[in-house]
């Protein structure tokens, strides 16, 4: 496999096709980690995962171990999870409370929860050295910038670059709709995420979120069989839970064409503009009244009538606003991606809502899910199939139009692969800022 730099990596993306090395090459993966995941805004966690001062939560920004921690001033900080001394990870467990400071288990260097150096044992050993003039002498390093958007914590690793608002723009309307569905206007994490390991490239998962031509094919074995079983039972009401959650995956092409796809600049987009597979859920008693009390009837209806399907926030998360779910596609290597699927409780809403979201999560997103099984099967077959030298390009041409302009919001036929092309357009843009003068990004090469 050839070696790549940013210039040649960007040549792997054409308007209607991408070269398979974007999914298989270690070089390209390392360039993505160094540029795309450094220059964009990456999801870290939810602020309810660290509700009290000193609470922390460990995760990854792609291959970078980081800590989300609540500091003594109640602000959330995101720090690289390594001791500035010898590199030891400071926090090992997934979550906990560290009190007023972190303490490295190796040599007991300690740090305030904003990362600043607090103390070093036997500090006289550094007298006359220039430790205090080094970056390591200052403490644990923080990421370049962070943003708490309605409880969802995002970070940009690069010190300078595109602002949060400019990066996400109109796409924030999906997070808004998800949070607005809580009568109290805030969400809380409901338990740990499902963790599902995929032996495939992370981009396959992100692309699949707006791939509306696969459900009735890949998921016929689960959704189609559910429809058949229910029919054999005489279609009894109330319908089994699976008929609400899984059966809509068998909706015909015409349905998915009609619901539409919207794309926003910088690689964001969503399926389900006019409705979605989440529209036809049973209503939850008492919920609408609580929404009306909180927002008034007009606004409550407006919030609940928006039933977007999957919203992709480039580069690597997906939000299901009507269900209060977020999936984090964490790249671990060119052929390895950890998927963490979270459920959030809309605060002030009846428990039935979070119960439905938890049900959806285990039926669709779990390593034990019949739907997940067939998705993973096709991704892993693709990862293996892409090693074939017979054809080197991957086609993303469905409903392609000449001169597509991704810098403007657009709504298209719901079976378009435009959102996949939008993601690759953004991939080039943030891989190689010099190719694009609109971003104001720092040169990281």
């Amino acid at each position: 496999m050839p070696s790549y730099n940013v210039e040649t990596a960007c040549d792997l993306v054409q308007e209607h096709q991408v070269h398979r090395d974007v999914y298989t090459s270690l070089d390209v993966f390392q360039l993505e980690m160094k540029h795309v995941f450094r220059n964009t805004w990456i999801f870290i966690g939810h602020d309810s995962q660290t509700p009290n001062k000193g609470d922390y939560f460990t995760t990854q920004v792609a291959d970078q171990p980081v800590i989300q921690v609540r500091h003594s001033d109640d602000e959330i900080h995101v720090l690289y999870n390594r001791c500035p001394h010898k590199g030891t990870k400071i926090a090992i467990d997934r979550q906990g409370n560290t009190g007023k400071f972190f303490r490295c288990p190796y040599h007991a260097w300690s740090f305030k929860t904003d990362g600043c150096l607090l103390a070093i044992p036997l500090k006289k050993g550094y007298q006359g050295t220039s430790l205090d003039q080094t970056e390591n002498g200052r403490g644990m390093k923080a990421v370049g910038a962070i943003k708490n958007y309605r409880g969802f914590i995002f970070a940009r690793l690069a010190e300078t670059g595109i602002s949060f608002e400019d990066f996400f723009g109109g796409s924030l309307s999906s997070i808004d709709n998800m949070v607005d569905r809580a009568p109290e206007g805030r969400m809380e994490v409901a338990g740990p995420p499902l963790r599902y390991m995929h032996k495939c490239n992370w981009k396959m998962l992100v692309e699949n979120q707006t791939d509306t031509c696969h459900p009735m094919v890949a998921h016929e074995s689960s959704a189609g069989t559910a429809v058949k079983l229910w029919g054999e039972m005489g279609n009894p009401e109330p319908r089994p839970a699976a008929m609400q959650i899984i059966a809509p995956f068998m909706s015909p092409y015409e349905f998915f064409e009609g619901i539409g796809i919207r794309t926003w600049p910088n690689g964001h987009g969503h399926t389900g503009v006019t409705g979605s597979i989440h529209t036809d859920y049973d209503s939850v008693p008492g919920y609408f009244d609580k929404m009306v009390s909180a927002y008034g009837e007009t606004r409550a209806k407006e919030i609940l009538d928006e039933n977007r399907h999957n919203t992709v926030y480039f580069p690597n998360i997906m939000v299901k606003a009507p269900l209060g779910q977020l999936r984090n596609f964490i790249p671990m290597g060119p052929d390895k991606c950890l998927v963490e699927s979270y459920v959030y409780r809309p605060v002030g809403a009846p428990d039935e809502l979070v119960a439905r979201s938890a049900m959806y999560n285990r039926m669709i997103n779990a390593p034990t899910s019949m739907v997940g099984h067939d998705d993973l099967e096709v991704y892993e077959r693709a990862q293996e199939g892409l090693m074939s030298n017979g054809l080197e390009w991957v086609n993303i041409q469905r409903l392609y139009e000449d001169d597509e302009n991704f810098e403007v919001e657009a709504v298209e036929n719901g079976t378009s692969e435009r959102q996949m092309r939008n993601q690759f357009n953004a991939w080039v843009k943030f891989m190689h800022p010099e190719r694009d003068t609109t971003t104001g990004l720092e040169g990281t090469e």
Partner: protein
Amino acid sequence: MIAPSRDDLIDFIYAEVRMLDEGRFGEWIDLWMPEGHYWMPLDYKQSDPVNVTSYLYEDNFMLRLRVERLKGERTFSQKPKSRCSHVIQRPFVDEYNPGANHYVTNTSMHYVETRLDEQQLLALSATHELTVFDGAIRIANKRVDLLNCDAAFGNIQLLP
């Protein structure tokens, strides 16, 4: 059947895992009371199956769907099919209450699932709530706790 003996309950657990190992899923489904749930928690010592995520909390329809799907021509993740093997310890009979027709067993086991070149080993404990219905022992509920429930898994396609 009058009240089952402790040995009857233990034999039932052995017979159940043998059905799963031999792929006799149709027979296995018939072991269930219709209102029973198969629960596999996500979190260690999880107490709530409903309002937080689990791996599985399957009602009878979902279990039937799972079994039916395994037979399908277009069940791509089962081409070729997975196989499994349970190695179980002698079950504990933790509750033996013929008066209430309610029995609880707890069984430690090693569950191996394989497909193509992959094989995975799960250590787990299974808690069965059993009852006698129509003269036979039936599963009222089953809970499976994975020892490494907090690990990231690839596909787990059959049932421990």
